[in-house]
């Protein structure tokens, strides 16, 4: 809670407004960093503090002597820079307008290439990818990614499930070649390797920032205010804020996060805030660059009013530790404050236990308004409800106490907000409570339940907290056997796995009253059919002894999700899938 502040090492004003997110830092002459930003609809400003005179199309700004302006006739959507030209250390500026990409050599005042992007431009990044030897310009569009070389020749192209919000090249599987991490608007982080998506990480909102940390870790930020860190595909931690993150950078040993409201905080390996600063206006960007030419990168924060602040990458507490031998430093005092916080919390807790035990001694007293039998337990179950077309979360106590209210916290499964609450009328209080859940997407969801238990007239309730994970395909329940309808659409593929493994996969990924079991060891064929609780559509799975698998469903997305989930479970890297009229229906029907 207590966080110390940090002083900037440099400060400057651009005297231009800066469009949030469209900022880059490049070395146009190969040695000196220049901050480049969009300053309104079609204007680009280049700050060159090291005196390199920029000639040609760029004009010296009226508002600031060290700033040049570059006017395009089209809106600027994205900016990026990189030394893409072979054997040339100079950075080229890449300007994305709604439908075009322009590569511009600022130093030589010449255009490198000009390319139409029919799918639109949202993000541009420059980096090595896969087996390509040269640095590529990778452009994220509305439903695709495209890579260009320095001459503007397309190197590859691929479809992405949703609008691309962020991209970064990263050696995800540690094979020495970079993969492309794509943050999509449909809440997935996808990893593209050699024209194939090798993994999809489901998140709870549009992924608007991605940033490298180390060779195994990366940080992400979502449009709902969540930021977090993944290590080898596993999320280490996440925290949620009201603000949106503009940018994340690994600075020193901490994750620096720049929020839209102009706050910058540094978090340690567990997400705890160590330091924070607040800029005077909203933030536009935060970048890591050696802007002072001192040989070490600084964290450069740009506000939307054009204020630029540089913070050292490693906090300068060397001088403080030197004096702390004799005089307690400020950090030490913060430590004392923290210790007292801890002491206070412990004292309060202890007081509660003491008061509790003292109330135990006089038993003849009337039941206090805060009481509950000590052996009260809370039981939680989840069951499919095909009448209400939902999952019923059942919360119940084991005695005469009642569940006054229950709060369910989960992300991405409620229409409004992040919680669902149930608060029965005073007269309808029971020791059991039903809470309907309708996850809209087939992703695993962590559901956190807080139930308040007591008596109807209690003034204070005991909080029971439970976290449950809903499996990925929890909205599919086993169909009654009498239902038999033909589903024409299906996908088929062949795997070489024992049927027992398929059963385990089903048990892990579906919510079943009873686990699926084979009749006997020798069973080779296996059929199961489900009903989707959302629209009562059918899903049938057939597994025959020769390894032929058939998923029958009218929903192509579900078929894809099932195959993806099964392939991940069985560790398959390559699977040949045939689909029957599914795709046709999807595209034309």
């Amino acid at each position, binding site marked *: 809670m207590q966080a110390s502040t940090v002083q900037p090492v440099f400060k400057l004003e651009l005297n231009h407004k800066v469009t949030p997110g469209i900022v880059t830092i490049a070395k146009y002459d190969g040695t000196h960093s220049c901050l480049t930003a969009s300053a309104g609809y079609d204007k680009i400003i280049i700050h060159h503090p090291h005196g390199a005179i920029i000639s040609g199309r760029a004009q010296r700004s009226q508002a600031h002597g060290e700033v040049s302006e570059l006017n395009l006739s089209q809106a600027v959507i994205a900016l990026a820079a990189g030394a893409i030209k072979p054997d040339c250390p100079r950075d080229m500026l890449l300007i994305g307008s709604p439908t075009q990409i322009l590569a511009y050599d600022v130093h030589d005042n010449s255009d490198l290439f000009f390319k139409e992007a029919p799918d639109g431009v949202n993000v541009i990044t420059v980096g090595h990818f896969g087996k390509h030897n040269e640095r590529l310009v990778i452009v994220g569009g509305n439903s695709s990614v495209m890579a260009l070389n320095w001459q503007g020749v397309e190197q590859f192209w691929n479809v992405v499930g949703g609008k691309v919000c962020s991209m970064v090249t990263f050696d995800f599987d540690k094979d020495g070649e970079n993969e492309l991490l794509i943050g999509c608007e449909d809440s997935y982080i996808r990893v593209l390797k050699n024209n194939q998506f090798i993994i999809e990480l489901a998140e709870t909102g549009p992924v608007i920032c991605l940033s490298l940390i180390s060779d195994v870790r990366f940080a992400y930020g979502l449009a709902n205010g969540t930021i977090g860190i993944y290590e080898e595909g596993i999320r280490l931690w996440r925290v949620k804020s009201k603000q949106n993150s503009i940018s994340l950078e690994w600075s020193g040993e901490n994750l620096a996060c720049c929020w839209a409201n102009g706050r910058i905080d540094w978090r340690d390996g567990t997400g705890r805030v160590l330091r924070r600063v607040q800029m005077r206006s909203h933030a536009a960007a935060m970048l890591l660059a050696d802007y002072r030419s001192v040989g070490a990168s600084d964290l450069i924060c740009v506000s939307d009013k054009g204020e630029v602040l540089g913070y050292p990458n490693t906090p300068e507490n060397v001088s403080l530790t030197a004096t702390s031998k004799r005089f307690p430093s400020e950090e030490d005092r913060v430590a004392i404050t923290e210790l007292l916080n801890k002491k206070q919390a412990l004292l309060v807790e202890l007081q509660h236990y003491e008061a509790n035990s003292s109330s135990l001694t006089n038993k003849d007293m009337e039941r206090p308004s805060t009481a509950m039998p000590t052996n009260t337990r809370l039981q939680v179950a989840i069951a499919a409800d095909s009448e209400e077309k939902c999952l019923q979360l059942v919360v119940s106590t084991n005695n005469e106490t009642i569940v006054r209210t229950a709060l369910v916290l989960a992300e991405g499964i409620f229409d409004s*907000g992040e919680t669902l*609450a149930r608060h029965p009328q005073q007269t309808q209080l029971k020791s059991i409570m039903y809470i309907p859940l309708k996850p809209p997407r087939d992703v695993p969801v962590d559901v956190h339940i807080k139930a308040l238990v007591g008596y109807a007239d209690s003034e204070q309730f005991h909080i029971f907290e439970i976290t449950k994970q809903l499996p990925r395909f929890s909205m599919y329940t086993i169909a009654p056997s009498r239902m038999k309808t033909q589903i024409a659409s299906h996908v088929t593929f062949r795997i070489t796995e024992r049927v027992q493994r398929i059963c385990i996969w089903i048990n892990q990924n579906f919510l079943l009253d009873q686990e699926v079991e084979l009749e006997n060891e020798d069973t080779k064929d296996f059929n199961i059919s489900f009903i989707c609780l959302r629209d009562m559509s059918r899903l049938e799975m057939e597994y025959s002894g020769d390894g032929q698998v058939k998923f029958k469903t009218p929903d192509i997305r579900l078929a894809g999700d099932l195959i993806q989930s099964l392939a991940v479970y069985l560790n398959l890297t390559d699977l040949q899938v045939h689909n029957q009229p599914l795709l046709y229906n999807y595209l034309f029907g």
Partner: protein
Amino acid sequence: MDYDLTRIDYALCGITYPDALKILPVSEQKSQQKFVIGDKNGILQCMSIKDEEPVIHFKTLPGKSITSVQLASSSGNNVDKIFAASGNEVKGYTRKGKVFLSIETSVAETITSMCVFGSDLVLCSGRTVTFYRELQEVYCYLCDDRVLDAVAFATPNNNRVRLLVLIANKEAVIIENGSLYKRTYIAAGPTRITVPSCLHSTEVCAFYGGADGSIGLIFYEDPDLLNKCLVEGCGLGSVMCVGWFYTGAGTHLAVGRHDGSIQLYQINTDNLKEKPRLKFTYFSGEPVTSVYGGCIGTDEPELLVATFSGRIFGLRPRRLVSGNVPISNIKNGDAFVLRRSKLETEIARLEKQTASERDKYQRNTRSIFPGISAPPLLDIQFELSGATSNGWQEVKIICAVSLDMLFIYCQNKLEIQTDSAAVLSLCSAQDTEDTELLATIRCQAGTRRLWLRMRTLSLSETKLEGTRVFIYVLPAGAPRVARIIKLHLPTLPHYSKYESLEVENQNSSWCEVRVSGGFSVAEMTAWLAEAIPGELPRPASNVALARSHTILGTLLICRYQQIWSHIWQMVEPLIPGSPAIPGSGSGYGNGGARGVKNLRKRFRCQTRRLDLATYNARTLRTDEKVSRAGSSEQVALEYHRFI
């Protein structure tokens, strides 16, 4: 130039109420000052600080909550006497901690504020100000609303005492000899006053801090009691305490607020009406209950602060902290390391103790002989304000432990707002009708205070009995219990300003409702409590009260005793031609029948003999602006018109 002060934590105590911390004057031998603090557990402690470590000089046993601590004013002969008020008692302590005085006063309610002036004692409790001289009650003055704070002044040429009293209906009054001398209305709603020491003791002049966060000056210039706002509220929280901070640079007014901010304003002592200059701001994160300046940790002045949850810390110039300047009471690193390790071992011991207690508690949950788990109530204070011009009613919640979540439930749809740091999430409806409000508020780590604004969405939804709101407060730490706060939003939320009954004599047009029937005063009080905000007078044989509308200025007067009651509503604003409703005229003549609704079934004081009808007061005025202002007044009684 702004001051650069840094926080040094000193000690912990129980929950503190505003103005329960005082710094003792300098004694002859030492330049460092002691301070006294009283807490909710009833413990009064006198401490000084040595090497940043508290040294306790005396400490009383727990008892009734201490709600106010005062030192005897230096003008009398009782210098260095400490007075602590708890409940209706006042105890006097010497510097050594010896009780030299203990009186049980006749005041009915808890003493909320106290003032010692020579041998005179002034107690504020509930709506009364009681004046004691030589421990004998001299007079008791009943105000229109709750008394918030009082200070005493000497009168020129005689030994009478003038009291400047702040009242919750945004009034400041001077009481002299048991009767009202002067009064003034202050829109900012002052909550605390303090007198600068530079003044002559007969000059009635004091700084106030307002509920809207503003700071101003109240002064008496014959023949009027005047006030001047010096610093606007600027969105900061309401003022909970004010104090003085004297340094070489001048005199400063220290202000502690409900939102946890502490500010220092430099005052020009030659011209108090000059705008004070803001010199320092610090955010402590929890409501500040006391703030004073004094030489606590070193020979130089620093600011001493107490918070609601019982943290006591100093704000000391940074140069004294970093130790660049050699000072006499040098605190070297060793002492600090010692303090830290002491604290760490203490916490380790507490952790062990807590773990064993927690274990014991949890073992209890598994035992086959169930006991009862009855943790004490969480320490939560809350306050619901009357409606503002937009119809918002604000509730401020402060908690001694940090909050995790709040869950709000209301049967009616409400509009709701909260602190920008907290995440408000509206839940989807429980059933298809969707007439309820279910919302959760997730707090940032360390949140101990929160405000919440609510207003009813549709006026047609307004029920006669008002709107009930349940707020479940879930703290972040152990033990895991949630306390419920039950709020009641009244039907006429705007009638929150208390008025004196003299307004009845005003020459203006009134509507009158007469009810007679077999009801008691208590029943009548219960009904009115659902209709109008704030506290009502206690049921007595004959009750009268007057309220005015915060926007329109119209008056509501209720008089009731057993069997009959009169309710007047004034048709015209209080001040003729007041700009609150320009050009409204007197439109009482038309269509009182509109909006009549039979609410007999809901009306609690319904009697066997009486025919009741509702009358929507809004329809009295045809003016659109009134209804747009969001007033939702319905008076559920038969009415007569009379002039």
